[in-house]
């Protein structure tokens, strides 16, 4: 029995169990999670639009002054200069020369004020559009995208995170939407963990194993179907489909010229993989770039990190534009917060959430637009102030999701985005 179930490999057995365990653990808090399986006509219409979201998470807190809102020559400006972009009158940091040439595709929010300087809380706010609360947990943008944008019959997962280090697994980031929409992690851009079938298992053996599993599943479900059993079944089916489509996650299948264009370093590979995934219909991909928490020697580190970010990101934007994918793909470059205008004694910048920037583009967002402004030294927002909740609404509106509506979960209306906030309509065309 054990051999039939897990092909005799203890490692593989553990892997499958771990996969199931992670999936199920995400479901524990979901009473009656079957609700998400019901979809309305409007939802299906959105799914047919094949919209996608790609988030670049600048982990640790990208400095807005060394990226999207430079203040050269001021007390807070630091050593870097500003350069013109493809948008007349718009200047960004000289660390982003290639991205500067893509700004006509993008939409810059320069008046972000999230008033939260804690890494964890800031990240939660930016990813869920809500403040963290002990009373409720909210799904991250990736889970919302997977639920609202991914066709129901998709054979691929809708929520992928490409993380810098090895490993993998799943996130518990879908909250009440359930584990079906939680992220699958691609450690260092590698295919999902434990999706390679052991060499000793032939196609025929694998087919018989799956048939046996389904048969026992059916017998069990006939009498005792619950949300939890559905999650288990879904997890098995998803794992099976992932194993069949492992090549989707293999960036080395991309043309060599493209691999060189993006750069052979990890972040370059991850950006190219993001392109590959959205071209194959995956609704949400998050790429992380680390690390920007530069309390010390901020300028040297941004020189290194932003310098690495620039070319792959600019190539990604350019590729999507050239391939006609920008109308269907929202790109967001965010952090948990920005960094202090004040330069500390270690030539660093500290946490700063009161006046920073988020870059986005694609979908229904205005192209080449700049919304909001900070004062001369970047210490406060002076025009079009926005926060995490408004941005969250706006991301969803940009891909055709009416963020003012609700999910129906177990008969309850759960607002997709914070009902106390509204989209930034100025940014939507």
């Amino acid at each position, binding site marked *: 029995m054990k051999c039939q179930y897990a092909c005799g490999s203890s490692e593989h057995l553990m892997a499958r169990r771990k996969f199931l365990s992670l999936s199920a653990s995400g479901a524990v808090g979901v009473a009656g999670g079957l609700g998400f399986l019901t979809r309305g006509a409007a939802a299906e219409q959105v799914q047919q639009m094949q919209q996608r979201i790609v988030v670049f998470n600048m982990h640790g807190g990208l400095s807005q002054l060394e990226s999207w809102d430079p203040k050269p020559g001021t007390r807070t400006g*630091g050593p870097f200069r500003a350069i013109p972009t493809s948008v007349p009158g718009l200047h960004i940091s000289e660390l982003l020369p290639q991205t500067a040439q893509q700004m006509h595709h993008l939409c810059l929010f320069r008046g972000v004020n999230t008033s939260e300087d804690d890494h964890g809380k800031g990240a939660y706010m930016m990813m869920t559009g809500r403040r963290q609360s002990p009373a409720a947990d909210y799904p991250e943008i990736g889970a919302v995208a997977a639920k609202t944008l991914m066709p129901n019959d998709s054979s691929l997962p809708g929520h992928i995170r490409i993380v810098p280090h090895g490993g993998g697994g799943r996130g518990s980031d879908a909250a009440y939407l359930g584990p079906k929409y939680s992220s699958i992690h691609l450690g260092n851009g590698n295919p999902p963990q434990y999706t390679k079938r052991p060499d000793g298992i032939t196609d025929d053996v694998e087919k018989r194993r799956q048939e046996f599993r389904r048969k026992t599943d059916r017998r069990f479900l006939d009498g005792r179907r619950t949300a939890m059993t559905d999650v288990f079944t879904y997890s098995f089916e998803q794992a099976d489909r992932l194993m069949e489509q492992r090549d989707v996650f293999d960036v080395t299948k991309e043309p060599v010229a493209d691999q060189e264009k993006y750069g052979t370093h990890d972040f370059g590979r991850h950006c190219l993989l993001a392109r590959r995934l959205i071209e194959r219909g995956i609704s949400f991909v998050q790429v992380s770039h680390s690390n920007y*928490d530069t309390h010390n020697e901020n300028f040297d580190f941004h020189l290194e990190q932003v310098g690495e970010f620039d070319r792959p990101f600019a190539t990604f934007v350019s590729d999507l534009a050239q391939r006609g994918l920008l109308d269907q793909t929202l790109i967001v470059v965010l952090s948990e917060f920005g960094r202090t205008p004040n330069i500390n*004694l270690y030539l660093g910048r500290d946490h700063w959430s009161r006046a920073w920037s988020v870059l986005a583009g694609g979908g229904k967002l205005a192209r080449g637009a700049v919304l909001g402004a900070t004062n001369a030294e970047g210490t406060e927002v002076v025009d079009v102030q926005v926060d995490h909740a408004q941005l969250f609404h706006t991301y969803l509106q940009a891909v055709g999701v009416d963020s003012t509506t609700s999910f129906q979960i177990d008969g309850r209306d759960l607002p997709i985005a914070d009902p106390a906030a509204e989209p930034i309509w100025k940014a939507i065309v």
Partner: protein
Amino acid sequence: MLDVSKARIIHDFTHERPLLACRYDPKERYVVTSSEDFRLQRFNLPGGEKTVLPEVHSSWVHALGFSPDGQTLYSGGCDGKLVFWNIAEPEVKPLRTIDAHQGWLRAMSVSSDGSLVATGSNDKTIKVWNTQSGELVKQWVGHTKNVYSIQFMPDGKRILSGDLGGAVQLRSLDADDVKASFEAKPLHTYEGGQMVDFGGVRCLAVRPSSDQFAAGGLHKASNPLGAVHEPLALRFALEGGQILKSHVSEGITGGGLWRVQWLSDGTLMGVSGGSSGGFLIFWNDQQDKDYFKFKLPALARDMDLATNGLNVVTSHHDGHVRITHLSAS
């Protein structure tokens, strides 16, 4: 008479912005500093009358150097510019501006006869310029990481350079290849969790006898982004390239060496700045640990030794430029 244990601050001048680099006029008439407002300042000695130089650089200036006669100042900025100044005149003006590098000009060194100035940059090149004509006389591309430090040998014909990755290279002006390579790896950290390169050869100093040199920077960088690291100077034998001493300083848990220089009695002096504050640290050739350190009132970012061998100028984050006298007299 040199006695570092009697070190004391004898001058303290201020600028309204945090200071970066500093150098002592070889004739000891003034000191020059750079600051976070892109400007350079000349402070006359001993009174400290300040002259702010015209704004020529469009970024910070980390590299300063003097001609041996003290008549010309050279400044290198994060704008890649190399500027020559008539620093000894009452009205200081730029004499020449060269677009020297495609990236930060981080380090410079003037040859002992004053005929050449060598510059190192984030563009990973080392360039040598004729100080009379401003012409580029030599260029090397060889470092794989940003060039952080550069130092002419006393003979004025060879140059040491160090980079972010801990590589130190010796070149001769009459050759294109690297004459010798030295591994200062303890000065480099790649922190896998934070995914950052950190440290590097922040400074180089050649002993007057030319048999040894020191490479300074930091180590034990357990949290590079959070300023957790300690100062370290590696004493190398020029012939053979072995590390003779790894000079550390106990009690400074947040610091790194911005510059090292040799004193007349063979002491190696370093200036450290970091979360532990500012220090002048002194090592001899007998032991790894320092034999004395002098606590400065604020975090220091650069240092230069006067021609008299007794006065040391330091530039500080708090906008002060301080001169410390290394003697009881």
